[in-house]
């Protein structure tokens, strides 16, 4: 049941009576009104700029009511102008459509190129342990290499310049199962805290990061490198190989991130993850390859310079904004203003801390490269441990189905990127065209 109307009216009247009227405001209005000139009753109001601005500020419909006929005429004129303009812009629209079609075609060509590269990459990844792959078969990520415009993986002009403190890496090594990992992390942290000698082109050029401080934008490329190697070693040399791999990590200034081993049918298998300085990455990979029979090698490099610069600039912008807000806060004169500005400051500070966390993470991945090495012990006869793969029946069908699904999923992701790019470009082009058609038309005609 709805509330009685009389009750609403009385309640509103009672509520309104609670507000006190300040008589001085009326006097103030009167004083302010004296200086105002009432507009003339005719069209002169349209010549008074101040008045026109005020009219538009109040609301157009007021004048619609006051002068309906005039308003209708103006609307018709505007519509007629729009129609004539749309006719004249038809050739321009056709030209823009042609340009967009060419652009989309190029985008689709880019999709095909990327898909082809992805297929090549996935084919390379299918190298299974036990197959006779060449011992020096480097399989860099072809798609990322082509995007970066680099001919060879080792040619990256990498020079990490932002480092983090030892705490960061001791934390990342906490999950390792061997004590060598922690020792390596401590050693790496100690090396990271040392400044390079002047005049020496050292890969250990390290500037300790103060938590919360803004990092200067990098002047050179920041590269994130990762890789994996599958090694087969002779019977009885598994532990020796693992020890030598650990020594490689610590010797190059890195540390062991993770290691695990297990015994199957009396043969040892395991994996070890080395975190090595990014500039030593290639030499470490080469040394790892010499420790046994290489089954497969894959490496990947990603240029994250843009992300590093972007993070630094975003943090800088937020810091500037924070300074402005603090200035405003010092000038606030009411509690409401202070609270409002303070909430903005809190929000900005939390954003800055979040971005600084991302920056520290980004710094860590550009200083140390992660190399995952799988080590398989060969049998007494020197043959590798065979991994059972189904040759027929439902198991084979299932195996193929899983592989096919994964490959299809990879392809969908690879296609989605360029398509999204094309869509964004199309939207931007439409906006540009919409807002600049007048000038384009003048230029053409």
């Amino acid at each position, binding site marked *: 049941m*709805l*509330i009685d109307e009389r009750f609403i009216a009385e*309640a*509103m009247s009672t509520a309104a009576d609670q*507000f*006190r009227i300040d008589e001085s405001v009326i006097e103030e209005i009167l004083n302010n*009104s004296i200086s*105002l000139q*009432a507009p003339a009753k005719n069209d002169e109001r349209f010549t008074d700029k101040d008045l026109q601005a005020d009219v538009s500020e109040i609301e157009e419909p007021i004048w619609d009511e006051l002068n309906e006929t005039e308003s209708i005429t103006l609307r018709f004129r505007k519509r007629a102008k729009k129609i004539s303009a749309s006719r004249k812009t038809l050739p321009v629209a056709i030209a823009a459509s042609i340009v967009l079609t060419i652009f989309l075609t190029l985008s689709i060509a880019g999709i095909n190129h990327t898909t082809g590269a992805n297929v090549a990459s996935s084919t390379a990844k299918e190298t299974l342990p036990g197959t006779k792959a060449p011992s020096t078969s480097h399989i860099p990520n072809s798609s990322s290499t082509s995007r970066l415009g680099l001919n060879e993986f080792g040619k990256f002009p990498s020079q990490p310049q932002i480092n983090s403190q030892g705490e960061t890496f001791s934390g990342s090594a906490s999950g390792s199962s061997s004590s060598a990992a922690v020792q390596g992390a401590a050693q790496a942290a100690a090396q990271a805290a040392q400044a390079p000698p002047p005049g020496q082109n050292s890969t250990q050029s390290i500037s300790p990061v103060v938590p919360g401080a803004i990092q200067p934008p990098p002047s050179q490329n920041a590269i994130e490198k990762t890789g994996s190697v599958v090694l087969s070693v002779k019977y009885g040399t598994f532990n020796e190989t693992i020890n030598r791999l650990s020594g490689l990590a610590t010797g190059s200034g890195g540390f062991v991130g993770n290691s695990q081993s297990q015994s199957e049918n009396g043969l040892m298998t395991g994996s070890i993850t080395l975190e090595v300085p990014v500039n030593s990455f290639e030499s470490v990979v080469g040394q790892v390859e010499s420790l046994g029979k290489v089954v497969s090698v894959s490496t990947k490099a990603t240029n994250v310079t843009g992300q590093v610069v972007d993070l630094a600039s975003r943090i800088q912008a937020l810091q500037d904004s924070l300074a402005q807000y603090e200035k405003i806060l010092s000038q606030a004169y009411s509690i409401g203003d202070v609270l409002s500005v303070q909430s903005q400051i809190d929000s900005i500070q939390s954003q800055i801390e979040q971005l600084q966390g991302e920056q520290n993470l980004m710094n860590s991945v550009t200083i140390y490269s992660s190399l995952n090495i799988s080590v398989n012990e060969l049998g007494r006869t020197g043959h590798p441990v065979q991994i059972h793969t189904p040759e027929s029946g439902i198991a084979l069908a299932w195996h193929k189905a899983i592989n096919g699904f994964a490959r299809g999923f990879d392809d969908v992701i690879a296609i989605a990127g360029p398509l999204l790019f094309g869509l964004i470009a199309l939207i931007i082009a439409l906006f540009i065209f919409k807002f600049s058609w007048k000038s384009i038309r003048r230029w053409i005609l």
Partner: protein
Amino acid sequence: MAELADWIREGYAPAFKTACLILGNSSDAEEAVQEAFLRAWRFRDSISDNQGNAIRPWLYRVVVNTCVSKLRKEIPHRDRRAPEASLEHLSDPKLSPDQEGDRLELATEMLKSLSSLPDHLRITLVLRYYVGLSEREIAMAIKKRPGTVKSRLHEGRRLLSEIPALQLLASEWLAVKASARTSQLPSIEEEMN
């Protein structure tokens, strides 16, 4: 000058209280009404000749526009002020302390309920039940069709009816009114005699 003074003195109080009910805050309402009156004064000649009998809805349109402008542009940026926590209660010497307490409770509850409504419904309800404009006049004031005004009024009343505290006050109010009416009627025995 005298005409202006009369015009403003006469119209300020209802306009101010209307703005208070819409904005829920006297300081915002003061600013809004002051701005509205200055604007209205500028265009008083134009409106008086063209629509002489529509000054009232037109004036409230200016007030409502200013209030809406405040609600949309200024107040959201500084966390819209809550309805005044302690109303400046104006004591009425004719009323007992109990009655004054009831009035204050009614006023507080009504303001709270109004502030919980969407802006467009609150404005329509205030113009109808406080200012007393007809549906047609409200339609002119908010530049909507009379049918829209009607549906907004119904929706506003429906939402108010869903507030338990207000519903309780309404039922008490009705009971008081009914008993007062009964006491005014002559009793059956008196009629028999």
